[in-house]
């Protein structure tokens, strides 16, 4: 579990910092979100994971970190759907690519974390 946490930590940290850098215009990547706040969120998630590896109850951090990551994944999907709907309503073109975010696929990695802890909770 801890190894997986370190992996998630690394991924979310890199993504988060990149999003922030794009947000303040230091880096420019096509079709990559420039979002200071979204990047900040990812950094917080990464901090949760890495803090968990040094804590007394790593499983708690694993769960909460994964949960928040999953929440964001779902959130961005909802925003994408809303923007798509908005484009239809306003009769504008919908740029799918610019609406995709790395958090979407990455949040799938959070599922094991959430699932395993919820499973344990059931059996208690």
């Amino acid at each position, binding site marked *: 579990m801890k190894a997986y946490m370190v992996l998630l930590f690394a991924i979310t940290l890199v993504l988060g910092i990149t999003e922030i850098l794009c947000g303040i215009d230091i880096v420019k990547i096509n079709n990559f979100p420039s979002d200071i706040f979204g990047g900040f969120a990812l950094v917080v998630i990464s901090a*949760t994971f890495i803090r968990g590896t040094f804590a007394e109850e790593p499983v708690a951090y694993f769960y909460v970190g994964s949960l928040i990551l999953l929440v964001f994944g779902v959130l961005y999907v909802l925003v994408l759907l809303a923007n798509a709907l908005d484009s239809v309503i306003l009769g504008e073109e919908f740029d799918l690519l610019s609406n995709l975010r790395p958090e979407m696929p990455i949040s799938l990695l959070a599922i094991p974390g959430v699932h395993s802890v919820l499973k344990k909770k059931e059996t208690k």
Partner: protein
Amino acid sequence: MDFATELANARYELIGKIISSSVKKVSKPKSFSDLVDTVVLDKYLGIPIFLTLMWAAFQFSFSVSAPFSDAIDIFFGAAAEWAKASISNEILASLVGDGIFGGLGFVLVFLPPIAFVFVSLAILEDSGYLPRAAFIMDRVMSKVGLHGKSFIPMLLGFGCNVPAIMACRTIENDVDRKITIMVNPLMSCSARLPVYILFAGVFFSGYEGAAIVSMYLLGIVLAAIMATVIRRILFGGRISPFLMEMPDYTMPSLKLVLNSAWIRTQIFLKKAATILFVGALFMWFLTVFPWDATGGGEILDNSYASLVGHIMEPLIKPLGLNWKAGVALLSGFMAKEIVVGTLGILYGVESEEAIQSALSQDFNPITALVMMAITLIYLPCLATIGVLKRELGEWKLVSLVILYELVLAYAVAALIVVSGKVLGVV
């Protein structure tokens, strides 16, 4: 210096020290909620996690509701057009089209974000997270005379003050609730952004971001100051103790969440909507009459609104603003977004670029800042006044809010003008 607070804090501080050295939490089988709390209330992660979740709630409430707001906007826009085309009597057509459909649409455009905010709030409440959030923020908030539970509504105010003020219902303590409501309008809502963007774009190009962020910061600072002042003057400086039940975490039930959101949304619809609707009709009247002179609302210059603007002018001249700015700000009374549109109508231009060049004639960087600051502070918009009445109960308190905002806006504007003169900019 408020020694009563200092003493209370000093006592708690000392208690904390005593306890940390003599009381130890031994590992006993931790419940699920305790486990989650170790992370959520973690000394370093607590606040960042809280901010992150707030951001998610913010995004959800305003981004995901946008298509619904647009749909409503378009629907009523179309209905207005249809009314104006189908009704032969011109005045009636304008009344039904711009007045009624326009007015209705304007009110209902607020519905989706409000509903989504209530859904977010219900999820946070039902899951059991809200008391933790309040606990985390209480330390910070109590220093500026606010309660931990005030933080979330204050943050929501950055999106729109209307659902933010309604969100204050989660604050049980009456005094804390009232204070939070009364300073909430100072949190710069998204409707004010167009004004900031317009003026920052023309007069602070290259530093627009800084100019705009400074408005947000100004709002926060003023809110903190006014919270302390209001608490002292109106409510005797009492700070209620922070006592909160921390229930177990549970999976929010969809039924409960939707139900709670619906109940709160309904209240908004009923009360605030009546005031909003009446207000919209009123503004319609002002910009459209006298009918013949304005050619059915085409020539703003001859309307009653313009009359009012010219009456106002002596008041705002010292601030370097002309009657058009006055009318634009007046229209902002209905909804802050309208300010930009009104400026466009008054300067007789349609496009963004044209407005920009027109503005450089009548304004300068200092008066631009004045416009932005006034937009931030001067008045709650009609919708906000509606909820203020609904949530505060007495017109006395609502009038107080309007009054302090007007005075504060004028004072800050004057300060900016004077600083400008002193610094030799103007």
